[in-house]
């Protein structure tokens, strides 16, 4: 009884320490992000007054009705040589807000100051961007808190593995930019192996269960990527509209392939670890369980998770295209053209991911069986 009590006290001390540290990090980062004006070279203005000066209805060439507004804004410069001075800005925005935005008091804007039009003490300038860092950081903190509260230790571990993976990916891309002669797909394949090993060992430790999942993930991803290569080769890429791929500074097909690899990795890992941990759990419950029974349960588990995990990928990829599809349709584009322009790459990603998921079910089953049999032979 005393032991339990003591360990409870210890646990809470540890937890109190952890939560204090996290709380402090939160407070410091929020104070920093709301006062980091001096770290930016571009002048930042905080909106202190807005006034609507004009509102008009417009109808575009496709008969879409919208409302345009013009807003006069007075802002206070927060950094640089003009710090403390007032600036006058003009903002045009529409009620739909596809590429514009109404500003409210308290918003912070990156501005460029027009020195030629200085009158009295009020500067004149134009808005170049919005300062959004405080929102990104705040939502990131909410994410961390929600994950810690509901996920406890597992939540902490998954936050850690996400952070490590993001840093690694950034390093891998730096490496590629410095050595463009190495294929991006190769770099991503190597980092894929590292991601898999790190994510799976962080979540379930060094044991046979994890080794089986790592091998299954790597095989599943590799084979599904080969299928994607062959399919694109055989069809010579018909139906894939690479034009839609934005932000291209590099050969598009390679970037797309590398993205395919990374994108399906998480889902394939999910399947592999589910298969191996549930089969190992069955083996540990009953050491004499037959290979046939394990196979049957493995296939059953696979059938259950197959549909839901493919739909995770499917919705995550497709949903991002909704706004641009609506923009195309409202500009009188034909439905077929709109869909093939905006969905072909995303659908192909989701399908390749789905192929990886389904393939990993038998692959995971057999690699886990191999490890179970090895363990059984040893004991």
């Amino acid at each position, binding site marked *: 009884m005393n032991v339990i009590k003591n360990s409870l006290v210890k646990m809470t001390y540890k937890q109190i320490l952890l939560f204090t540290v996290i709380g402090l990090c939160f407070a410091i980062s929020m104070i920093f992000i709301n006062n980091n004006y001096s*770290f930016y070279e571009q002048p930042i203005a905080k909106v202190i007054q807005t006034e609507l000066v004009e509102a008009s209805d417009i109808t575009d060439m*496709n008969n879409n009705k919208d409302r345009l507004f013009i807003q006069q804004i007075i802002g206070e410069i927060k950094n640089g040589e003009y710090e403390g001075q007032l600036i006058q800005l003009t903002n045009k925005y*529409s009620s*739909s807000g*596809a590429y514009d935005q109404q500003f409210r008091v308290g918003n912070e804007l*990156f501005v460029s100051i027009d020195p030629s039009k200085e009158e009295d003490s009020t500067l004149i300038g134009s808005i170049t*961007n919005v*300062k*959004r860092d405080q*929102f*990104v950081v705040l*939502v990131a903190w909410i*994410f961390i808190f929600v994950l810690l509260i*509901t*996920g406890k230790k597992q*939540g902490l*571990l*998954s936050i850690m593995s996400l952070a490590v*993976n993001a840093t690694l*990916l950034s390093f891998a*891309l*730096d490496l590629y*930019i410095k050595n463009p002669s190495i294929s991006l797909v190769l770099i991503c394949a190597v980092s894929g192996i590292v991601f898999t090993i790190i994510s799976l060992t962080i*979540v379930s430790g060094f044991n046979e269960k994890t080794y089986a999942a790592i091998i299954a993930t790597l095989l599943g991803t590799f084979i599904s990527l080969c299928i994607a290569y062959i*399919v694109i080769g*055989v069809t010579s890429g018909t139906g894939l509209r690479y034009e839609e791929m*934005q*932000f*291209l500074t*590099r050969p598009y097909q390679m970037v*797309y392939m590398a993205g395919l*690899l*990374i*994108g399906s990795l*998480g*889902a394939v*890992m999910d399947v592999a*670890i589910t298969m191996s941990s549930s089969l190992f759990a069955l083996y540990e419950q009953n050491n004499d369980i037959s290979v046939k029974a394990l196979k049957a349960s493995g296939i059953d588990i696979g*059938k259950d*998770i197959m*549909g*839901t995990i*493919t*739909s995770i*990928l*499917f919705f*995550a990829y*497709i*949903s991002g295209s*909704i*706004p641009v599809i*609506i*923009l*195309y*349709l409202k*500009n009188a584009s034909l439905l077929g053209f709109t869909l093939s322009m905006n969905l072909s790459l*995303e659908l192909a990603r989701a399908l390749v*991911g*789905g*192929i990886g998921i389904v393939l990993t079910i038998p692959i995971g089953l057999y690699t886990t069986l191999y490890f179970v049999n090895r363990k059984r032979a040893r004991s």
Partner: protein
Amino acid sequence: MNVIVLLSIILFLLMMIVGGKKGVRSFISLFLNFGVIMFAIFLMTNPQWNPIIITIIACVFISCISLFFINDVNSKTIAAFISTIITIVLLLFFIVIVTKYAMIQGFGEEEINELGVFSLFIGIDFTKLLASVIIMSTIGAIMDVAISMAASMHEIFNNNPSISRRDLFASGLSVGRDILGADTNTLFFVFFGGYLALLLWFKDLHYSIGGIINSKIFSAEMISILCAGIGVALSLPIAAGINAYLLVRKREKQQA
């Protein structure tokens, strides 16, 4: 032959071989869900209708297809359905607030050049559209949590029929924690994979860290993916609570 068609055929064959009848149903449900999304997009082009309401209705259809069509209507899928819908409605409140203040709707300056031929004044509220996009991107993961938790909590309940509501809730949560890690991982790799080109672009054009974080396109993606993760985490206690409530109520009814 078209890449998409060929890949779909391969996926269909694999699902059929590995998953049998259930595999075929899973494939058909993907197809039906695609139809629901297309129909929802079509409805959203009408400026009079609120995209968020359309999204909620679409989510009800999507969960019906993914839960009831693949697994039949039973106490597990009903519990999963209820927890999915409650999570989505709660998450929507959060997302509507975030999208209203973060100013991340619509298109970023990096994207706008290619859309130059189009009129951007189409009368559709892009802020609400963004809330719809975030919900749609996470519904797959929320359903995954809901159905996995319903299945394992039913299992726990059947193995130990006299378990108290509180213990059932706690063991449900501990099962859910494993799924939480896997699903956030899946979503984040989807994000990394989909935006590899964008990350390379930022690095090639020597964006500063401040430039990246404040750019509309990056912050929008980051906030969306974080909201999706929040949704998954939020669905754990909701699914655990609903299952514990429904299972214990069923037992009490039988005893009475």
